[in-house]
């Protein structure tokens, strides 16, 4: 990739940030050049974000229908999966999965909710419902 070919395609995900990519200048030397982004990178990052958003929305709908607790929704919003939430809270996966059941979740102590709050960055009172 030569200097002139470095994409400057304003990746909206960067929010104005520029990243350094290495490219060959007219003198033949390869050096870092700031880039505003490449559509290819934006497509694949957006794909990953869309997937997370879809999962969160599905979890929200399940919670609204009373089929799941809000915990699953907040886990998705924090871009976590079951394995990561389990590791971050020190609560076994089967227990976390149980806490996805609304009737079990309703009875959780403040102490356990506090661990979920710490891991997801969502305050305890917000964990109880699905408002983002």
């Amino acid at each position, binding site marked *: 990739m030569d200097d002139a070919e470095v994409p400057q395609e304003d990746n909206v995900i960067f929010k104005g940030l520029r990243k*350094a990519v290495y490219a060959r200048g007219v003198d033949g030397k390869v050096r870092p050049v700031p880039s505003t982004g490449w559509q290819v990178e934006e*497509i694949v990052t957006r794909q990953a974000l869309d997937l997370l958003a879809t999962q969160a929305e599905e979890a929200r709908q399940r919670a609204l229908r009373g089929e799941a607790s809000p915990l699953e929704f907040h886990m998705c919003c924090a871009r976590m999966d079951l394995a990561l939430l389990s590791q971050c809270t020190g609560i076994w996966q089967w227990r976390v999965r149980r806490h996805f059941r609304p009737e079990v979740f309703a009875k959780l102590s403040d102490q356990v909710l506090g661990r979920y709050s710490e891991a997801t960055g969502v305050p305890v009172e917000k964990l109880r419902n699905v408002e983002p």
Partner: protein
Amino acid sequence: MMTFQHRHASHCESGVMAALVTHAGLPLSEPMAFGLASALSFAYIPLVKVGGFPLVAYRALPHAITKGLRGALSLRMAVETFRSVGQGAARLDALVAQGQLVALQTSAFWLPYFPEDLRFHFNVHNLIVFGREGDDFLISDPVFEETVRCPKADLTKARFAKGLMAPKGRIYYTQSAVQAPHWEKIIPAAIRKTCRTMLAPVFFAGVKGIRSLARAIEKLDAEQAPRFLGHMVRMQEEIGTGGGGFRFIYAAFLQEAAQLLQLPILETKADELVTIGDEWREIALAAAMMIRGRQPMEPKRIATLLRAQADREEAFFRSLRALV
């Protein structure tokens, strides 16, 4: 306040190590830090899952650059991790108060200065703390153009994130001035090590790893293919790679090596590697067009491109090995 020069880098670990070593008295470019640590690689490890997908990496494992440079430059470096959050935070406070330049391992997810949509649970993001103003740490994050600030509470959270490769508050810093090394000894050794990795006789690494990845992609069905390909392209082109799966940054290293070793043939190899990097970007572009639906989804076509790429890299690293 210390005099510290922030430099924009393409990859966090090589950027941090280049800055630490430069600050300790030996001017070192990011490509030189990357190349000397033999950080160029390829790995496809089906058993290790990243976000639900097999690990695909175009570089050595996290910490390899730190370890590689410690050996190559005989750095005196302290590395500390902490069991308790309180102790870890206090230790950083104390070192910064002493005027020490400190590098940290953090989780990108908890760093407030990251754009919202780039905040993933990535636990091996490296950055440098070069000072403090009130409750804010002054940070040189190599992947950012300018220095940034981060409140102590957020930085502590980022340092003690849990999960895969949890940082455990890891900090590292140089402990003495760095002397100029014997370039004519350590550069060829580093190049040989990279060639060895790329030509390793195992299915999951180097050019054989690329072929294994091609086989896996060939077998994907229409439902799995877009997400798998997206994952591969993210590992290759997302922020932190310098583009072309680190091949361009290694080309810059070969150019510097050609100068230091008086070995002009390495300039030619650098140009070849730039071409190889361009081919990686062509693969990424083809995959992205398929993901977006602008081209029909044909995993087999990507597999064919990957095999051609494996052949190219095999020839390249064989001839490079013969030169040093």
